[in-house]
């Protein structure tokens, strides 16, 4: 089994007696309400998905991650995982203070021991992490919405983050690791997505599965921008597709609780490292991974892996070019495997697909499986 990032799977859920003690103490502590992104991060830190992180980043780690895509100890880590102060009083908290991290219902989920408070420059963070400070970028908009005072320190979870959806698909890293071992899989390819699945995605997944023992389809169900297809719709597509076209004993469908950062190449590294923690050995990186608009080159998310040695990343990226159906080849292909021109390729832009779906028109089966297209058309009508 592949080792977690940093060598051990972090577990930040407080054990029995400590949990009871912290739960009693929590009502007397200052409360820090979490944003949707911070809530997802907390959940993932708690279960080890973000190993080796044990809490929200302190200043040395933050600056190192922003500047060099590494934690202060040199371990690759490409995205700042941070907690912002929510008001002036929280902006005065500092080392030695203990706070309760609460959800939108004021339920205490965790206690955090603050080790430091620090100020950041959001323009700089945006330029370094998102490669832009353009206000139209959703990641920049998020940074503009939060305080530039961050609080760092380890967390102790005393209560699970409550979910009402996808309950049967929520697996923690320790669970996927046991599952893969039980199925006898030593090579597991992970597929991250926030989009509905078309034939091109299916092609990448099945190419990866030809090389691996098993496939983890791991759709992101945390916060996304408003015009992304809702996770409920995407999951229905996956269920239909797997039932009709995938070997059930070689595929695991489970949800990935993270929020989208839209950080393109840096998020590709982040997504890969986290899937290593889930026990995956390979990670599919397609065209414009975690991208948005025209902020990133189509294959920037491939190139960024070259900034690290394969040993320090640990999980093996599987790079794929843009895939399409070629009418002359009579199969799915990419520019690497098909010699024919664009006139033979069945390709639609995202905008064109949205127009078709809104008009109740099914995309051709060479582009989208009919089972998936019907779900998308139905969703577009609502």
């Amino acid at each position, binding site marked *: 089994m592949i080792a977690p990032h940093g060598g*051990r799977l972090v577990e930040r859920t407080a054990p029995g007696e400590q949990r009871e003690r912290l739960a009693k103490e929590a009502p007397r502590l200052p409360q820090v309400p979490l944003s949707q992104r911070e809530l997802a991060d907390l959940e993932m830190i708690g279960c080890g998905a973000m190993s080796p992180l044990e809490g929200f980043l302190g200043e040395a780690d933050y600056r190192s991650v922003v500047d060099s895509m590494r934690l202060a100890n040199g371990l690759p880590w490409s995205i700042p995982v941070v907690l912002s102060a929510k008001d002036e009083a929280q902006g005065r908290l500092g080392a030695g203070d203990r706070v309760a991290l609460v959800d939108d219902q004021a339920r205490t989920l965790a206690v955090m021991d603050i080790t430091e408070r620090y100020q950041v420059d959001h323009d700089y963070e945006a330029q370094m992490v998102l490669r832009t400070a353009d206000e139209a970028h959703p990641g920049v908009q998020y940074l503009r919405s939060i305080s530039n005072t961050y609080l760092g320190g380890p967390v102790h979870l005393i209560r699970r983050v409550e979910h009402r959806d996808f309950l049967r698909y929520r697996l923690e890293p*320790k669970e996927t690791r*046991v599952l893969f071992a039980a199925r006898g899989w030593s090579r597991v390819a992970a597929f991250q997505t926030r989009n509905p699945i078309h034939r091109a995605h299916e092609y990448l997944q099945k190419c990866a599965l030809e090389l691996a023992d098993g496939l983890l389809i791991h759709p992101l169900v945390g916060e996304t921008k408003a015009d992304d297809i809702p996770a409920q719709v995407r999951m229905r597509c996956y269920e239909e597709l797997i039932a009709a076209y995938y070997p059930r004993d070689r595929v695991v469908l489970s949800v990935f609780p993270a929020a989208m950062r839209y950080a393109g190449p840096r998020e590709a590294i982040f997504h890969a490292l986290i899937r290593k923690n889930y026990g995956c050995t390979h990670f599919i990186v397609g065209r414009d991974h975690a991208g948005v608009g025209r902020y990133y080159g189509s294959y920037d998310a491939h190139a960024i892996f070259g900034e690290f040695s394969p040993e320090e990343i640990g999980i093996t990226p599987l790079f794929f070019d843009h895939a399409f159906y070629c009418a002359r080849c009579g199969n799915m292909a990419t520019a690497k495997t098909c010699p024919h021109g664009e006139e033979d390729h069945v390709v639609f832009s995202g905008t064109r697909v949205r127009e078709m779906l809104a008009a109740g028109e099914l995309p051709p089966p060479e582009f989208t499986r009919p089972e998936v297209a019907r779900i998308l058309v139905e969703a577009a009508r609502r």
Partner: protein
Amino acid sequence: MPRGSSEAVTLKIPRPLYERLRQMIEGTGFRSVTEFATYVLRDLASRPGGQGARPRARRERGEAPLTPAELAAVRERLRRLGYL
């Protein structure tokens, strides 16, 4: 006199351990400590060479550092969800 294989016997464990196990099974689907202990012990006994008794060996291989009880709880959840 030989007894039937389905007949239960009593195992004695320290009360603090019992209380700890009772806390551990909250929310896992196990209805009692007896049911949990039976599951864990059966799982351990079914493995060749008693692998489940050696969590350190699993850790050395980079596998999940779970105790046998934790491992049993994870497997039970995976079964209930239809993954195993």
